């Protein structure tokens, strides 16, 4: 009975209490860089969550074989392999998204969220718990990026997931799809998010 509660907590933790973006501030580069629209945020979130899930699975399986001195480089190679797979799949099947995300796809390798979870969780826990942890954290990351992308898209271009709801030539807050808007939108979202767990 106790273990199921733990699993549920492990899963939910990533979504609210330890949300990787709003609370832990991990993986900030792609968070700010690609969220000019809800769709881009969703795409980046799913790509990262996939790499996170796969690397957590592999790391939790090979953790006993890797000497602790070289574990970080070993983790990085595992992560980089999956990033390369994602890169090739996106280029072949979703070239539009591949172009939009650009440099940030190879940079999933240095997303501190993934290495952080490999080091802090997967290298110490069993397969099932690592999968649950990756799903929770991955979902938290997807929600955060999609939310930020959607907010910026609504304010900046007056549309959501590409569907426009303002008349043509209407003036929108262009600043929100420009770089400064990323910082400011995230500032307010994380201020709002800080309020949630304390309620």
């Amino acid at each position, binding site marked *: 009975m106790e273990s199921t509660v733990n699993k549920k907590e492990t899963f939910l933790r990533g979504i609210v209490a330890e949300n990787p973006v709003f609370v832990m501030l991990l993986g900030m580069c792609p968070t700010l*860089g690609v969220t000019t629209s809800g769709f881009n945020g969703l795409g980046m979130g799913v790509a990262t969550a996939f790499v996170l899930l796969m690397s957590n699975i592999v790391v939790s399986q090979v953790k006993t074989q890797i000497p602790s001195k070289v574990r970080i480089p070993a983790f*990085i190679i595992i992560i980089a392999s999956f*990033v*390369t797979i994602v890169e*090739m799949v996106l280029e072949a099947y979703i070239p539009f998204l591949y172009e939009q995300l650009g440099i940030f796809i190879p940079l999933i390798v*240095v997303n501190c969220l993934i290495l952080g979870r490999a080091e802090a969780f997967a290298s110490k826990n069993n397969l099932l718990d690592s999968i649950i942890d990756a799903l929770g954290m991955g979902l938290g990351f997807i929600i955060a990026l999609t939310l930020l992308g959607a907010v910026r898209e609504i304010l900046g271009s007056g549309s959501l997931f590409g569907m426009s709801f303002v008349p043509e030539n209407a003036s929108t807050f262009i600043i929100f799809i420009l770089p400064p808007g*990323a*910082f400011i939108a995230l*500032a307010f979202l994380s201020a709002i998010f800080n*309020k949630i767990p304390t309620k």
Partner: protein
Amino acid sequence: MDYILILISAVFVNNIVLAQFLGICPFFGVSNKVSTSIGMSGAVLFVMTIATMATYLLHQYVLMPAGLEYLRTITFILVIAALVQMVEIILKKVSPPLYQALGVFLPLITTNCAVLGVAILALGLEDVSLLKAVFYAIANSIGFGLALIIFASIREQMELAEVPKGMKGVPINLIIAGLLSMAFLGFTGLV
């Protein structure tokens, strides 16, 4: 002329932190004091230049002739990680004062996405050569240093200011970064 354009573009117009969002982690992580941010900028300048040189040569003379470009991500991150370790060891031996100043920042740099980002972006420059790639890396690290040091100076002043309760900590820093980025937006059209 080409090189002046690269410099102005990398430092002001397409600032690596404020416009391209690379290297955000150290930007927020080590910017609470001006002195540490200067140390970090120095370490980034050092590592980014050497890393770009190494990855450029690797790409040009090993990966391209062998048709292995798809291994770019894996090989680059490995080279950078190994290089950072090596720089750390050599500095410790050769120049202890420099190691004292930069040492603590070096391990952090492996996961600094600006280094990998610049190494990859440098390959996409127009008729790229080794000299151009290295110059691009230097220009970008100057841009990184400029943004980091300005940001750290503002944060030092902010300690005296009264911030609304909900905005304390992370949110207010993001707002500062946003305003700074807005200021840099003023350079648009310069190049």
